[in-house]
C-alpha cells in the first residue's frame, strides 16, 4: 500500500504548499481544512483511528469553522498576501534553504530506528489491566498520564478565559436562516443522532476508539450546528452552573488528586475496585467541559442562550 501512502503524502505536501502560498486567505484556509481531513485519513491508515476522529472533529472541523468565521469578520481583502518565492530576494532564499535542510534532516531522523522498542509504551500495554479501561490510549490519558490531561484542561480553560476577555464574538449570520427553513429542519432531524454519537464516543472510549475528547468535540459540533441554524446563540452573561461545568473537567482531576491521597497513599491513584467508576465519571465530566469550552471558544461569549431569549 505504499502507493496510496505516497499519494497521500504528496497530496498533504501539495495542500500544505497551497495553504502557505495561496494569495487569498480564504483559499489558504480551505486548503488547511482539506489537509486536516486528509491527515485524518492517513492516520486511519496508521492504526490511529481515534486520533483521526479527533483531528477530523477538532483539528479540521471545529478549527475550520473558527477559521472561516474569523475570515468573515475581517475586512474585505484582509490577509490576502503573496509571499515571496524562494528566489525573490536573499531572505526567502535563506529561509527556504534552512527549511529544506530541516525537512531533510527530519526525514532522515524519522527513519532512524533504535534497537529496542519504546519502554514506556511497552509498560503501558503491560499494565493495561490495572488501568480500569481496555483502550490503551484512554488508559494513558486518564490514568497513566492523567496529570498531562489535567494540565491540558487547564490550557483549554485559560484559552477560553483569554478569548472571553477579548470580547470579540464571531459575527452571527442573521439572514440565511430566515430565507429557508431547510437547515433548521435538518438540524432538528440530525441533532438526536449527533448527540447519540457524541455520548457513544465518550462511553466507547473505554474499550474502543473514541473517548472524552472525540465525544466532546462531536457534542460541541452539535452546539455549533444549533447556533448556525438559529436555535441558540452566544450570551453576554454567564452563570455559575455553566462556569462549574466548564471548570469541571479540571476540577474533578484536581479533587481526585487531592482527596484520594489519604485513601490510596499515592497521588492521582485510584483505589482498586473503584477505578472503573472513577474513570467513567472523569470521562463524562471531561467530555462536558471540553464540549462547552469548544463551543464557547466558537461563540466567543461567556454564556449561551436559546435564540430570542433574554
Amino acid at each position, binding site marked *: 500500500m505504499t502507493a496510496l501512502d505516497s499519494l497521500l503524502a504528496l497530496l498533504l505536501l501539495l495542500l500544505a504548499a497551497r495553504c502557505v502560498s495561496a494569495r487569498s486567505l480564504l483559499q489558504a484556509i480551505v486548503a488547511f481544512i482539506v489537509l486536516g481531513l486528509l491527515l485524518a485519513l492517513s492516520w486511519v491508515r496508521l492504526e490511529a483511528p481515534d486520533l483521526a476522529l479527533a483531528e477530523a472533529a477538532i483539528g479540521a472541523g471545529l478549527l475550520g469553522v473558527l477559521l472561516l468565521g474569523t475570515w468573515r469578520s475581517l475586512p474585505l481583502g484582509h490577509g490576502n498576501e503573496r509571499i515571496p518565492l524562494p528566489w525573490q530576494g536573499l531572505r526567502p532564499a535563506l529561509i527556504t534553504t534552512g527549511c529544506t535542510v530541516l525537512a531533510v534532516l527530519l526525514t*532522515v531522523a524519522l527513519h532512524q530506528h533504535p534497537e529496542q522498542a519504546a519502554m514506556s509504551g511497552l*509498560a503501558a500495554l503491560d499494565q493495561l489491566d490495572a488501568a480500569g479501561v481496555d483502550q490503551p490510549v484512554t488508559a494513558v490519558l486518564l490514568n497513566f498520564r492523567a496529570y498531562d490531561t489535567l*494540565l491540558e484542561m487547564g490550557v483549554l480553560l485559560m484559552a477560553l*478565559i483569554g478569548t472571553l476577555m477579548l470580547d470579540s464574538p464571531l459575527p452571527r449570520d442573521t439572514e440565511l436562516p430566515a430565507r429557508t427553513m431547510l437547515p433548521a429542519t435538518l438540524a432538528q432531524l440530525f441533532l438526536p443522532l449527533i448527540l447519540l454519537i457524541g455520548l457513544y464516543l465518550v462511553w466507547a472510549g473505554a474499550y474502543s476508539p473514541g473517548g472524552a475528547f472525540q465525544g466532546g468535540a462531536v457534542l460541541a459540533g452539535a452546539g455549533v450546528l444549533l447556533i448556525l441554524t438559529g436555535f441558540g446563540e452566544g450570551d453576554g452573561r454567564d452563570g455559575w452552573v455553566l462556569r462549574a461545568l466548564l471548570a469541571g473537567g479540571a476540577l474533578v482531576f484536581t479533587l481526585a488528586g487531592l482527596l484520594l491521597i489519604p485513601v490510596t497513599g499515592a497521588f492521582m491513584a485510584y483505589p482498586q475496585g473503584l477505578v472503573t467508576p472513577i474513570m467513567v465519571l472523569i470521562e463524562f465530566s471531561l467530555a462536558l467541559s471540553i464540549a462547552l469550552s469548544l463551543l464557547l471558544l466558537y461563540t466567543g461569549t461567556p454564556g449561551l442562550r436559546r435564540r430570542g431569549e433574554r
Partner: protein
Amino acid sequence: MRPDVLPVMLVFLPFLAGLLQFIAGRPAPRLGNVLVGVNLLLVLALIPGVADEGAIVANLGGWSEPLAIHLLADGLALLMLLLTALLAVAVSLYAMAAWRDQHHDALRFWTLWPLLLGSLNALFLSRDLFNIYVTLELVTLAAIPLVLLAGPGKTVDAALRYLLFALLGSLIYLAGVALLYAQAGTLDLALLADALPDSTLAGSLGASLIIVGILIKAAILPFHVWLPAAHGGAPAAVSAILSALVVKAAAYLLLRLWSGPLDPLVTPAAGQLLGALGALAILFGSWQAFRQERLKLVVAYSTVAQLGYMLLFFPMAVTAAWQGAVYHGLAHGLAKGALFLAAGNILLYLGHDRLREMRGIDRPLAVSLLAFGLAGVSIMGLPPSGGFTAKWLLLTASVETGQWWWTITLLLGGLLAAAYVFRVLRLAFLQPPENVPDRPGMVPPPLMAWSATVLAVLAIVLGVVSAPLLELLGSPVGGSE
C-alpha cells in the same frame, strides 16, 4: 506528613484556588493572598527535606518507572520555587491594591494568577519531557490573558505576537520531544540520558529542536522580538511576573535539560554558540534598554539582556558557572520584579512613563525610587547583592576555564546596565520644574510601594545569604566538575 505530599500540593492547591475563583465569579483577593501565603509555607517546608536527601520525588498515579509521571523537587527546582513563592507574595499584595476598584479586571487577575502560579510550580517540578510541553503552554496561555489586562485595545498586538512565537516555540520543542522519544522510548528526564543511544542524528536533531524551542520561549536574542512590547505593555504586576518568572522558567528548563538528559548529546561547540547568543543578548539588550524613551520598555529590554547571563553557563559548564547562572536567575527575578512594580508606581503617579518628562518625582515616590535603586544595584551586579554574587561566580568560572571572552562580556554588561539604571535614577535627583503641573495620577498606596521595596531588599539580601542557597543547589547533575 510525608514529604512528597508537598510537591503535589504545590501544583494542585493553586489550581484548586484558580478554579474555585473561576466558578465563584466575583473577585476574592483574600483567597489569592491566602493561597500565595500557603504556597510560600509549602516551599519553605520543602527545604529541610531537600537539604537532607538532595531531592524529593513524588510519583503521580503510583505506576512503575518508565511509565509513571514524577514530580521532582531538587535543589534547582526548590530555588526556583522559592523565587516564585516570594515573588508571588509581593505581587499579590501589590495586585490587591492595584485592582481594588476594578471588579472585572480583579476577577480575571485572581482567576488567572493562581492558575499561572500552579503552572509555574508544575513546570519547575516537572521531570517529564511532555509534562514540560504542557506546562509551557499552560504558562503561556495564562500569561497572555494577563497581558491583556492592561486593556485589550492597547495590548492586543503585543499579545498576538507573543502568542505566535510561544506557540511556534512549543511546537518546535514538541518536535524535539518526538524525536527523542523515538530514540529513547521514554519521556522521563531521569531515564532519558541512559536510554538515549549514542550520537544519532535523530538524537542530536531532537536536542537541537528542544533547545531552539525553549530559546524562543525564553526570548533569547534572535527570538526576543516578542518580549519588549508584551512585558512593557502589561500591567505592572503582570510585567513583574512575566519578566521575573515566565521567561525565567524557560531559561530554567534549558539549564535543567542541558545538564541532565541532554548531557550526552550536547557538544562544547553548541555550548559556545549558546554562550555567544547570551553575550549578544547582554550587549544588545542593554544597549536597547539604554536607548528606550519609555521606562517600562527600559526595564523590558533589561530583561532581554539579563536572560543572556543565564546562558553563559553552557560554554563553561563548571560548577561555579552553574551556580552563577542559577543565582543570576534568582537575583534577576527578585530585582526585576521590584523594578517593574516600582515602574508601575511611577506610571500610576505620572500617568505616563516617558523618561524625558519625568521630574520632581522624588518626594511622592521616594519608596518606589528606593526600590528601583536597590534593585538596580543587583541588576548592575554591584555588591552586595544577588546580582553581584552571580556575576562573581560567573567571572570565576570564566577565569577557571580560561575563557576570557566571557569575562569581558560580563564586565561590559555590568557597565551597560549601570548606564540604563542610572539614566532612570538620575531622574530622582533632577531639580523639579518651577511650576509643577497638576498630576493626573495618584500617589501609589503604601502597599504598592513597599511590596516593590521588599523585593528589592530581598535581591540585596540574596548577596549575603548565598552560602546556604548555593549548598542547596549543588553542582550540575551531569556536568563536568
